[in-house]
Structures are given as C-alpha cells and as structure tokens.
C-alpha cells in the first residue's frame, strides 16, 4: 500500500473512532464500516484500529476472525452469499450453486481475478418460505433458479460499470 493510501486509511479510522467514542464497543461497527468502504481489512488497518481503541491488535484479529461477515480476506465488489440451510437446500440451492460457479468460473470461498465477485455460503438467512435465497452485498434475491443466475450477475456488472465511470455508489451497497 502506498504511503498516502495508508495515511488516508489511518485518518478514516481515526475519524470513525472519534465518532464512536473510542471504546471497545466501537470495534465491530468500525470494522463493519472499514470493510464496507475497502472490502478488506489488512494487518495495518487492524493495528490502527487497535491503537485507536487502546487494545492489542490480536484482539482485533480475534474478533474479526470470529464473525462470518467480518473476516480479513479481501472480497470482491459484489459478495454473493447463497443460503445453504435446510429450507433453501430442499428448494434446490445445489443447482443455483453450480450455476453460480459455472458462470463466474470460481468456487465458493473464492473471488474472481478481476475483483468483482466473491462467492460465499450463508447460514439460514430467514427467507425459508421463498428459497433458494441469496444476498448480493445487502440486496436480497429470492426464489432464485439456475436460469436467473445470469440475470443477477448481469445486473451487478451493469451497476459496476456505472460505478466506475461516475465514481459513486449507486446500487447494491
């Protein structure tokens, strides 16, 4: 990471810490916000967060590695989380999984080389009456069929293009 990037990140973390009151209770909201902005949380970010909250960096790592939605691994612009729990499973999530993997050329747990898409599993996301369900970032899709997968991915790609040219978050965030 360039020095200027590091400085910017540190500045943002400091601002967040001040906003949340620099106490341990701020840890998860801060990590969520940094993940939302940067789609990853590297060792440097964890150190700055730890400094700001007055705790050891390993405490930050310990929390980050516990929660499914935090994690230090870099993720794509669009994180696709497919529900794998019982009702979605009974409604055919395996075929949706296959089609997602076929269309993106990656397996679950991976990110496409262009950094656009990540495939992840989710445990029951509370859409059991309308499965199979998946989340693209925070946006919900229900009754997904293998056939609909292409449509969903295309919608993401279209909004990614808009984002790249207009430099603002327009969709799916």
């Amino acid at each position, binding site marked *: 990471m360039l020095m200027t990037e590091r400085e910017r990140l540190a500045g943002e973390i400091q601002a967040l810490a001040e906003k949340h009151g620099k106490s341990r209770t*701020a840890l998860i909201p801060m990590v969520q916000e940094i993940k939302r902005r940067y789609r990853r949380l590297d060792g440097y970010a964890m150190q700055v967060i730890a400094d700001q909250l007055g705790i050891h960096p390993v405490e930050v790592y310990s929390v980050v590695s516990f929660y499914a939605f935090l994690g230090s691994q870099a993720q794509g612009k669009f994180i696709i989380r497919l529900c794998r*729990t019982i009702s979605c499973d009974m409604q055919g999530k395996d075929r949706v999984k296959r089609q997602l993997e076929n269309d993106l050329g990656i397996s679950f747990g991976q990110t496409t080389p262009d950094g656009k898409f990540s495939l992840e599993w989710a*445990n029951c996301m*509370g859409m*059991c*009456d309308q499965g199979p369900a998946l989340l693209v970032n925070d946006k919900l899709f229900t009754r997904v069929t293998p056939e609909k997968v292409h449509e969903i991915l295309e919608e993401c790609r279209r909004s990614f293009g808009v984002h790249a040219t207009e430099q603002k978050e327009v969709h799916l965030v």
Partner: protein
Amino acid sequence: MSPLPTFSTMTPEAGLKKALSMGRPDIIEEIRSSGLKGRGGAGFPTGMKWNFAAAARADEKFVICNADEGEPGTFKDRVILQEHADLVFEGMTLAGKAIGAKEGILFLRGEYTYLRPHLDAVLARRREQRLLGRNILGTDLEFEIRIFMGAGAYICGEETALIEALEGFRGEPRNRPPFPVNTGFLGRPSIVNNVETLASAACILQKGAAWWKARGTEKSTGFKLFSVSGDCGKPGVYEFPMGITVAQLLEEVGGEGAKAVQVGGASGQCVPASQFERAIAFEDIPTGGSIIVLGPQRDMLDMLHNFMDFFVDESCGQCTPCRIGNTKLLEGIELLKAGRCSMAYLQELCALGETMQIASKCGLGQSSPSAFLSVVKHFREEIMGRTPSHV
C-alpha cells in the same frame, strides 16, 4: 390478509400510553399475570425477567431487542420488523419504563441489513412524534433506541453471546449466573427479549392480561407466530394459538401427507407422522416458531447432515462438548449415509448426544443433538444398513 392478524388490529401506542399512566410494578404485574413466555424459543417467563432487572440497582440499565433471528426455518421476526416495527419499539419503550432503563438497543442480524433503512425511518418518525427521547408524550419518561448490526454469527442469538458482541468481543457465551438481568451489557442490568416477545408485551399492555390468556393453554398462554417452510402448499408466517396440534397446523398450511415435521428449527426435534396429534406448546413440543415440513420423499439423513454442517460451522468452539461433539455427530451421519455404522457405534453417538445436552455451556450445544436423537429414535429403520447408492 395479513399473516399477523392480531398485531395488525392493535391501536398504535395504546399500550405505551397505558404504561405511562401506570406504576412500574403494575406494568410488570400485568406482563407476569399474562403468563407471556419468551418467543425466541427458550420460553423464559417475560414478567419474571423484567422483575429481576427492575429490582436490580444500578445507575444504568438496558433494554435489548434480540433480532438476531438465525434459527434455521425462522423468519417471523423479519416479517414483524417489516410490517410492525412500531409495535416492537413500543414494547421496548414500555419495557424501559418497567425496568427503569433509558437506552434500548436493537441487535439486528447482518443478514437483515436491507431492513435497516426502514427501521431507521421508523425510529426517526418516532423521535418526531415524541415517542422517543426526553419527555415521551409529555411525561418524564426518557428512552432512546439505537440499532446495532450483527456480523453473521448464529451464536449471537444466545443472550450473553449477543452482549459480548455488543461490547466488541467474540460472540462466546458467558457463564450464567450471573444473568444479564443483573450483570448484562457493560456489567449493567439488561433484559434481552425477542422481537415477538416485545411486540406481544405491547399488545398485552393495551388489551390486558385476561385478553392474552383467553387464547393458548394454561402453561403456554396467548398466540404465537410460526414460520412455516418446507414441503407444504402455503409456506409463510402464521398466527396460531399455543397448543395447536401438529396435524391441525399441517392442515392450515397445506402440508398433509408429511412424513415428519421438524419443530423448533435445527435445534428442535423431529416429530414423526405417528405423533402429529401432539401439541405445540412449552409443555409438549416447545418452539421458537420454526416449522419445517418434510414430505414423503425426504431423506432424514440428508436433513441431519444439513443441520450438523450448520452446527459445526456455528459452534463458537469455546466448550469441548459442543466443539468436538458436533463434529463427531457429523462424522457419524456420514458413516450412516455410507451404510458403515454399527449399532454399537450408533448407541455411542446417542450417548454422546445426551452428554452434550447436559455438559454444553450454552443452548447451542445443549440443543444441537436433539434432531439427531429424535431421528435415530423414530426413523431407525430408514437410517441403518444403507447401501452405498445412497451416498
């Protein structure tokens, strides 16, 4: 028709207005005498919980709404928050008055982030209407509600794990006692109530304990929301009185001809067709409302496999019975699927499951073997001596 008929017919803020005119002990007495039990699944008497927190002395107290709805097959809280968020916030506010808390926290699961804009808007409107903040409705009551986003951990539905997350730690359940009503969020007395419990409390204050008790059974009063999914014609959220039999419920949801029903989600029990006359209530088959209907074509081992994958993934790993036990049960299910499990080993697995029920630290490990044990009990013929074609 709304899936939540009773909640839909409530007069907005009538329960809160009534609570504002009552003394704190009277509010708690109303809830206590209604017999309301926690709607999240554990079924702890709500009035008793509030009473403990009200009696605790502290400079600060907290009302926490548990919207970390993660039990497989449960989605009623999502529907309540979408359609009747006001009722939930009303319940939190009057709970604040009852125990003497000034701050409420809605712990919303990360998977429900899309509900956040709606909930923020409802909270903003309530502040404008003076239903939150200082001098609520012109009285001296002060109460504020904020939203905390969960980060994707089933275990945070357990109240002490939820508090750990709020405090910025790993969601690992605490030893109990001390209970959160004495030593909760930031060491202060806190009540942690399910979304449906708080909405129901608002209804009870409005309509009275006698109205609530008119439905349900003696030990399980009132109505309950059920999240119905699986092999049935009309999946969705339903309101039924407590004590409804499995057969009656199946008829309503178009699930006749089911082979079994999983009541209470992955941590609940599997009820075979021969027991469909049993009642869904705390004294018979307890549930947080998750009903998964299994049609005749379903393989019980596939279901168990899905559940055990879930528990192995979601166990916090803190205590040995849960961490190792779930892994061993998962391996056992794989052996059964491959048709390579001896009866002696199956019995050992059942003994392990019973040990987990006693020895695990929190509700996750205490209840994760339930589905396994009930399937082994009721479907032994189906699961033994498989040929490898089933694999």
